């Protein structure tokens, strides 16, 4: 709570800007806090308060500052429009109408968000079956093996003699890019919640795939996109998608800050997604 805000009576606002998820959140807060009639917003006052609140935003990320400034501009414009004399006979809408509509909409979203958060918490108290591999049917040895010696022998003939010096002849030279592996990991994790690291390698034979997948894994954890977990040394290495804020404990949830926007915004730069 900014001590500076406790000066004027009508500007008596308890605003700490980075508590807010964005300009709509801030606006909603101002209106709720002062018990303002949504259908009759004192636009001059709110504009003043809004500007005051975002004054100290210098240290904020430029992106989100821009969003607040955009809203400030909208407020100022509405204020100006309200000062214009109304042309008689013209069915002009109240300049505030759109803002009101957005506020109501946003408020409802916030309410829904809270409900969903509760559902999420309830669901988190239930645990699904831990992943355990399906037990194989009784002795696999009893399955008829169709492989013939001819096949084995053919494979033997194709074995390459390793050269005693230098290992580079092993690398069959198809370039394998790390980005390709990054995509593989993310694509896979989009389908399943987590995967054993070696599952990512399973389809590939060359060691270079292993190296690049591993590097991609490191890169993704550096980008904070994935998390890797091992239950014990030398056990399987599990790869998970990382959440923006990790496991939301109670204390983490209270301050709703704009952090994710920042982090995620940076991520967005790598994105090949549709631009604007």
């Amino acid at each position: 709570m900014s001590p500076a805000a406790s000066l004027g009576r009508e500007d008596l606002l308890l605003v700490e800007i980075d508590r807010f998820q964005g300009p709509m959140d801030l606006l909603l807060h101002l209106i709720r806090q002062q018990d303002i009639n949504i259908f009759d917003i004192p636009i001059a006052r709110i504009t003043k308060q809004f500007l005051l609140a975002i004054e100290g935003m210098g240290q904020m990320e430029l992106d989100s500052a821009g969003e607040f400034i955009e809203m400030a501009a909208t407020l100022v414009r509405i204020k100006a429009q309200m000062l214009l004399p109304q042309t008689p006979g013209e069915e002009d809408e109240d300049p505030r109408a759109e803002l009101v509509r957005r506020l109501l909409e946003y408020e409802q979203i916030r309410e829904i968000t809270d409900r969903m958060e509760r559902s999420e918490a309830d669901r988190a108290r239930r645990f699904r079956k831990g992943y355990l591999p399906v037990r194989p049917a009784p002795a696999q040895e009893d399955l008829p093996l169709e492989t013939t010696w001819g096949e084995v022998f053919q494979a033997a003939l194709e074995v390459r003699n390793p050269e005693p010096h230098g290992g580079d002849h092993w690398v069959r030279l198809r370039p394998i890019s790390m980005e390709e592996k990054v995509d593989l990991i993310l694509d896979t994790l989009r389908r399943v919640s987590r995967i054993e690291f070696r599952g990512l390698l399973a389809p590939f034979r060359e060691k270079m795939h292993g190296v690049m997948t591993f590097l991609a894994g490191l890169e993704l954890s550096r980008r904070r996109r994935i998390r890797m977990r091992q239950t014990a040394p030398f056990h399987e290495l599990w790869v998970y998608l990382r959440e923006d804020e990790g496991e939301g404990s109670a204390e983490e949830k209270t301050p709703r800050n704009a952090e994710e926007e920042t982090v995620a915004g940076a991520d967005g730069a790598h994105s090949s997604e549709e631009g604007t």
Partner: protein
Amino acid sequence: MRQEQIVEAVLFASDAPLSAEEIARADEVLDEDAVGEAIRTLRVQYQEQERAFELVEVAEGYQILTKPEFAPYLERFDTVPRSSRLSGPSLETLAIIAYRQPIDRLEIEYIRGVGAVGVIRTLQDRGLIEAVGRGEGIGRPLLYGTTRRFLEHFGFASLEGLPRPEDLPIVLRDRAAPIQREAAPSIDDGLGDDLFALDTGGSNGQPAGEPSVEEDELNE
């Protein structure tokens, strides 16, 4: 081998919810009805035998989950995988997508007042939303919708399981009597109207009577 045993084995081995149809694939003699029957039997058995887990309906399918009261014990184990919670911005964005799907990025950004590129990506990476098509307009923007995984994460049986908007206390609106609305500026076309007729079916619903500002209320 009894049918409910097969269904149980399948549900037990899966770490995600399975629909009756999917379960039925386990065996030729099974069909959706038989699966439904088996599920009812199992449900009763787990209850009577006081198992620590129960068979619940989630994400348009079925899943065996531990009962909530065991959570405190399970949370002590590192070998028990936990689903991690979403951040505030993610939840908020997801709420918008859940109720307004299919929806494009600009609409989401307009409602929240902040950029959404990063959050959308995060939600996609987590498999909670997906691109479901392309909208009209410049650049034919991608439209997003929620996935089955979304339902799973929140434990909703289906999109119908989302909190009903009628039940929500809307503080702001209660402060004033609803008023007849005039023509809205074009910018919000297709944007806000259906919010008040939240259509859990996922399609853009009809605009319902929405309150707005009257001309004569300009008294600032």
